[in-house]
């Protein structure tokens, strides 16, 4: 019971609401960077590899 009371005392709902935008920005940021990397990797994978034959 003491633990529950202590937990309830600690709760700061305003701080929770203030932190929510960071969750949105953080996840959006990760997905944007990831999509850019995926596009680059796809582009890299499409670069034709020069064989020794081609170089000759």
């Amino acid at each position, binding site marked *: 019971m003491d633990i529950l009371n202590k937990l309830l005392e600690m709760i700061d709902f305003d701080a929770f609401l203030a*932190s929510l935008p*960071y969750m949105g920005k953080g996840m959006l940021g*990760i997905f944007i*960077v990831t999509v850019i990397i995926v596009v680059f990797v796809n582009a*890299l994978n499409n670069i034709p590899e020069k064989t020794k034959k081609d170089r000759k």
Partner: protein
Amino acid sequence: MADLLANFATLEWKQVAMWIIGALLIYLAIKKEMEPSLLLPMGFGAILINLPNSGAQHVIDVLFKFGISNDFGELMPLVLFIGIGAMIDFTPLLTNPKLMLFGAAAQFGIFFTLCLASLFGFDIKDAASIGIIGAADGPTAIAVSMELGSKYIGAIMVAAYSYMALVPLIQPPIIKLCTTKKERLIRMDNTQGKTPSKLTKILFPIVVTVIVGIVAPDAVALIGFLMFGNLIRECGVLNSLSETAQKVLANLITIFLGITIAARMRAEEFLTWETLLIIGLGLFAFIFDTFAGVMLAKLMNLFSKKKINPMIGAAGISAFPMSARVVHKMGLEEDNQNFLLMHSIGVNVSGQIASVIAGGLILTFFS
């Protein structure tokens, strides 16, 4: 005789409690083989630092100052990243780059836990440091929490490394809870896609460093050292350096890293109500990482013709390679001909990159 016992008289119960915690960490490392390379040094360090008037305090403080504190740029975790980068083979990811999206989704636990920690009254920088436990990546967690000046680094590290070791216990029930039997039976195409060229493997670490560096400049050290290690591995002309980075360098840093963390495991700092809360919040971080990775796979299945086994999304946490193995094993338990390893490894290494990006974004937001 009185002189010999004088030190004993200064012993406090909290120090004895820390010896027990240290002994527990050593037990878990040896008997249960849970992250032994870190939990054992941390456990021994916890005993060492909590002996009354311990003569080891000064040397561990010096190691902490030069190796971990941000006065000297969090040297140890960053150098360890060179070794980790040299160990990682990104081929499965480069063969199927869209797997990276699962790595991104599985960082949700970091930000969700940040919000939860704020709800429980932690200052936003401490909340962000607690959230980073969800990166499931020790060096990132150390570097971020030090950079943000968190006073809870001891508890954060114990939680991060303990849960990384507990991935085989934490993830399966969450995965089962989020998926149906039918979804777990989905077989994925195991035919190799186009094998990435050597040029792709060399350009990949450079391109990732530049992209992440531009978006999250504070992450340059983290991603840069990781990718530098990978470049050494993939360039093909530095095999000896690559081997040194993978074995000698990584082992050397690991020995010191664990025992140095003990500098923040002094009884008066560690035995607090907040430590218990941080350990609880860390578990939430791992649970919600797993949940988000699986959910993204389920969401993609709604729009995709080629179905994805949603379990592979769970491998997006960067606990490498345990998480990939857990998913592969679960796939085999459902259907002994369902081999998910190639896909789950690809997702798992993408989680390594995504967790560093997450760490960098957190530093950009709060440092």
